[in-house]
């Protein structure tokens, strides 16, 4: 077990290096990626630009630049090219909003995804299953930026209701109730896509599992239907959902709720990433990339551990 964890951690470090390096290369190669002319401004002379290049070490070989960037990022000294603000501090500031959004949305989508999948599998072929299938497909097909704007328009801006606050993040420490109310719409908007998707996946898993021989064995033992459904069907059907949830949740925590954060003006990590990409601002992009990669890698290890716990067949012996 210990060997497994150590192996995964070493792998994680390699992944971090690879991802950051590739991101860096893409940035360097992108047309217009050179930050010096942009920092220097419209009326800059060649000398101004050259000074900036010197200051930012842009004339060094690219591997030295990469190394310098990573060193200052991990020592917490990296600053943005455009705003001159400390990258690590900015990410830290965004974390409460991002975590609040993701944890709440995660709970909602996991709970309702399982509920929806279970109901449509149990009533497979009946009217309720068909209705759920259509709703799930609509949920999956609606882009977050569109749904977010529609929801804001309908419930927050007075067409026809205005009982919800329109965006912004209120820290939980400041006012828990306002925190909750402000996040309700973003939570649901982010969760809807996942609910539809998880519901479909779980429905398929349950319908596969229900025809397994061991489910017939469980029935033949005389177990009550509910016990068969929960202990033998659902327990086995949920194993793939765990993987899915772990990776989706990590991605969302890592800032891939960019659209939701932007639409609802939640100043989280995703919002920060969106700003940085808009400005072609390398240091924050690198910072956010490392931050996101960290969560993906961490959760894929967690998923493996949970998976081994849930399915004895793949436990390392």
């Amino acid at each position, binding site marked *: 077990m210990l060997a497994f964890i150590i192996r995964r951690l070493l792998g994680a470090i390699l992944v971090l290096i690879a991802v950051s390096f590739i991101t860096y290369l893409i940035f360097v190669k992108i047309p217009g990626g050179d930050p010096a002319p942009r920092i220097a401004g419209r009326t800059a002379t060649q000398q101004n630009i050259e000074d900036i290049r010197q200051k930012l070490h842009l004339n060094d070989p690219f591997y030295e630049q990469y190394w310098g960037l990573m060193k200052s990022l991990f020592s917490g000294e990296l600053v943005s090219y455009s705003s001159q603000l400390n990258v690590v501090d900015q990410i830290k500031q965004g974390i409460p909003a991002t975590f609040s959004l993701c944890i709440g949305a995660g709970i909602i989508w996991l709970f309702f995804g399982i509920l929806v999948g279970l109901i449509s599998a149990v009533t497979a072929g009946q009217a309720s299953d068909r209705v759920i299938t259509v709703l799930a497909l609509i949920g999956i097909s609606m882009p977050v930026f569109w749904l977010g704007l529609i929801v804001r328009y309908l419930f927050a801006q007075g067409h026809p209701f205005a009982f919800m606050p329109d965006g912004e993040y209120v820290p939980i420490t400041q006012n828990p109730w306002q925190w909750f109310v402000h996040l309700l719409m973003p939570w649901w908007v982010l969760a809807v896509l996942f609910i539809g998707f998880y519901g479909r996946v779980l429905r398929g898993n349950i319908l596969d599992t229900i025809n397994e021989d*061991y489910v*017939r*064995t469980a*029935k033949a033992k*005389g177990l009550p*239907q509910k016990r068969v459904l929960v202990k*033998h069907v659902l*327990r086995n059907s949920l194993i793939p959902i765990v993987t899915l949830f772990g990776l989706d949740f990590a991605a969302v925590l890592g800032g891939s709720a960019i659209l939701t954060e932007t639409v609802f003006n939640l100043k989280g990590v995703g919002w920060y990433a969106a700003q940085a990409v808009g400005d072609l601002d390398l240091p924050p992009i690198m910072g956010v990339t490392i931050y996101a990669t960290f969560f993906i890698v961490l959760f894929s290890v967690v998923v493996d551990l949970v998976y081994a716990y849930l399915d*004895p067949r793949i436990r390392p012996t």
Partner: protein
Amino acid sequence: MAERLVEVKDLKVQFATEDGIVKAVDGVSFELDRGRVLGIVGESGSGKSVTSMTLLGLTRDKNTRFEGEVLYKGRNVLEMNESELQEVRGNEMSMIFQDPMTSLNPVYTVGAQICEAIQVHERADKRVARRRAVDLLKQVGIPNAESRVDNYPHEFSGGMRQRAMIAMALACNPDVLIADEPTTALDVTIQAQIIELIDRLKDEFNSAVILITHDLGVVAEIADEIIVMYAGRVVERAATRQLFYDPQMPYTWGLLGSIPRLDREKQERLHSIEGTPPSLIRMPVGCKFRPRCPFAFDKCMEEPDLVNRVEEPKHLDRCWLSVPEKRKLREATIQGEVAAA
């Protein structure tokens, strides 16, 4: 006379499918007394598994129709509600399935799966159930049962899993044990052990056994009586010795002929019954075996009843051929000479 446990009367099971109505079981009757072993033999699709699953109500579905009666100690299983059925399943009648690789839930320990039935049916607490599970595993011949009880199914070999299935089926001391092709998925060397085990435990637990198989060789050892099924109906029924010494139905001859024999002259190849079983949706007119039967004649366009035609009164069959004719044609078929000629 021994206690009558199961009585099946003219059972019909039909499944409504998109292609039409599948007559999986079409008028099957038999009885089973305590301490006896009944063999049900037939090819895939002959309705033997559906018959046995219907005894436990496992074929119930909105697309399934039942006719006739399945009496367990005089109570009709077909008319029981779900909770009455749950009382019977695993507790009074239990079942062993064909493939032990897939019939155990991979995420629970073998012990937990055995305990489950005990806890549900006898409301026994965990410790009592666990002790029983260990005892059961010992009885079915699992070495180191005390530690093996906590193993997962994937840590067991195929034969051990089938033993564990048997232990699970016997957990609540049922009156009737239904074994649906219990040896089909196992090595030949393990097959005999499992059959012997079932035979021995039947006496220890004072139960009756229904043994379903497509292999007459498997039932020969332990069955008291054999039913041969074809296309959802019983085509021959006799005491085991009688069936082996004086089989009446050409289909039975075919089954007997397809057992590999070492005591005969070397055969060119193993004999098989020509053709495939009929569609259960559009059955042939008359005798259902007629299209595959090398001895079919005009009369076979009319379906023969399952009646006694030989000296032995309990031997029933469905074949129009006269008894002397059958006895003459039979030897040839079983030896595979008809197929060769």
